[in-house]
């Protein structure tokens, strides 16, 4: 059941990419995603693809895993493409009654879809090569400077940790309830959308109620173990920036500079 969940799935390994400091990886991915949106010509896309392919090769993550990450948003990508192709005014290339596909639409839509694919690919590479623990740690420490401006950095990281910890538990429970309901004759699979959604109610209600109980008990257990927010807390895992992180940072800087040049030359 949890196999469909590639985003957030960690593939342990010892590659250079795996060993980069999580802060470096999060920063690079954020910069990369932003940079995708300044690209406006094919050479920019070539550079972005090369960057992603090199990162993938260095990580030794099988391509299949990255593609698995893209699959769930395929519908979104196709929708973006279709909307653009038919909604952008320009030179018609195909006509079906009052619906017109345009050349300009195909180009903008194509590039937009391409951007989305790169975005998801690189983000899933981040989660595939970084353990959830390292990821939340990195995030917490990157956001720490903003805590002074009122951003609840520690709380956000704690929430993420707990979410990651409980997703498998809740999936297990959902499966158990589903089996119990199926044994009593509930049919989750056939019928139209309305019927199938209705069939989900006896699954969701107990799941919802038990989540509240879980939250209550977890809060009690955390308090019993001395939790009192982020203040005065130390961390077992220390993050350390090494030479590889500087190299990765420099490469990214060159990449972004290149994109800026291609856009504004």
């Amino acid at each position, binding site marked *: 059941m949890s196999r469909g969940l590639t985003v957030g799935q960690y593939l342990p390994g010892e590659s250079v990419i795996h060993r980069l400091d999580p802060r470096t990886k999060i920063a690079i991915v954020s910069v990369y995603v932003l940079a995708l949106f300044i690209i406006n010509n094919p050479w920019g896309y070539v550079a972005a693809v090369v960057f992603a392919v090199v990162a993938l090769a260095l990580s030794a993550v099988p391509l299949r895993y990255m593609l698995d990450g893209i699959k769930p948003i395929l519908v979104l990508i196709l929708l973006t493409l279709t909307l653009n192709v038919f909604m952008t005014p320009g030179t018609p290339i195909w006509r079906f009654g009052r619906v017109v596909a345009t050349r300009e639409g195909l180009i903008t839509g194509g590039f937009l879809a391409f951007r989305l694919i790169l975005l998801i690919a690189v983000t899933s590479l981040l989660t595939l090569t970084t*353990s*959830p*623990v390292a990821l939340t740690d990195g995030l917490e420490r990157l956001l720490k400077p903003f805590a002074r401006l009122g951003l609840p950095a520690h709380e956000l990281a704690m929430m993420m*940790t*707990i979410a*990651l*910890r409980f997703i*498998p*538990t809740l999936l*297990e429970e959902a499966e158990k309830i589903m089996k119990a309901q199926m044994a009593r004759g509930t049919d989750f699979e056939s019928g139209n959308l309305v019927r199938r959604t209705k069939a989900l109610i006896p699954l969701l209600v107990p799941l919802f109620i038990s989540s509240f*109980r*879980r939250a209550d*008990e*977890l809060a*009690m*257990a*955390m*308090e*019993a*173990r*001395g*939790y*009192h927010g982020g203040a*005065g*807390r*130390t*961390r*077992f*895992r*220390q993050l350390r920036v090494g030479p590889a992180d500087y190299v990765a940072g420099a490469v990214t800087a060159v990449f972004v500079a290149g994109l800026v040049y291609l856009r504004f030359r």
Partner: protein
Amino acid sequence: MAALISTEGLGHLYNQGQPNEVAALVDVDVAIEGGEFIAVVGPNGSGKSTLAKHFNALLLPTSGRVLVGGIDTRDQARMWEVRRMAGMVFQNPDNQIVATTVEEDVAFGPENLGVPPADIGTRIEQALRWVGMLEHRRHAPHLLSGGQKQRVAIAGVLAMKPRCLILDEATAMLDPVGRDEVMATVKWLNREEGLTVVHITHFMDEAAEADRVLVMDRGQVRFAGAPREVFSRPTELRQIGLDLPAMAELADRLRRAGLEVPAGVTSVEEMVDLLCR
């Protein structure tokens, strides 16, 4: 020597002053010495969990007081010391593990205490070795068995270097194998490391293995004493709604069938000795 944990005239009212007020504890006096293994039994709703939560300041008395290692639990400034000294393990193993790997979870308590990172590593190792889970340190908690999860939860408490371990029905949701694992671990910690244990349970056979048993009923401690004393009152216990440990039950039936059986038989060995005489 003063007791490690003591309550004096402890009373607890939930929803005090409201129409749905519940008197969960009434005038409870208990004293738990360092190094003791205490079992607490009693029917559902008799106040066992409420009592346990007073031992580490999760609840504060509405009357009377609780002293843990000489500290009054109402002393806000020293509440974290109390929480460190008396660690608590709860019933549902899934709802007390916070982190996504075993070692990160064990680190949670020491991190909250502000222990330096280098020391946290040593503490994790020692705690996981004690509960026999060291080789699982990098595993995800949801892949462990119930007994293993509870041992991780115990390790999470041990890493805080407590003086007392409180188990609130920590074996209730486990299968027999998991229960044996947890009991063996806790008994070993009590014997070898001198850790004080307060074990709340509804398995009378587990209670029979304690140094002392507290029987709770409607917010009060009805009996307290060695298992052989407490379990030699079959009629009173049944009235409260409690069973006897298997061997005490057998002894009671033999007695009623006319055999001469001395009071206070609680273990299989004693019973075997008796029958083979």
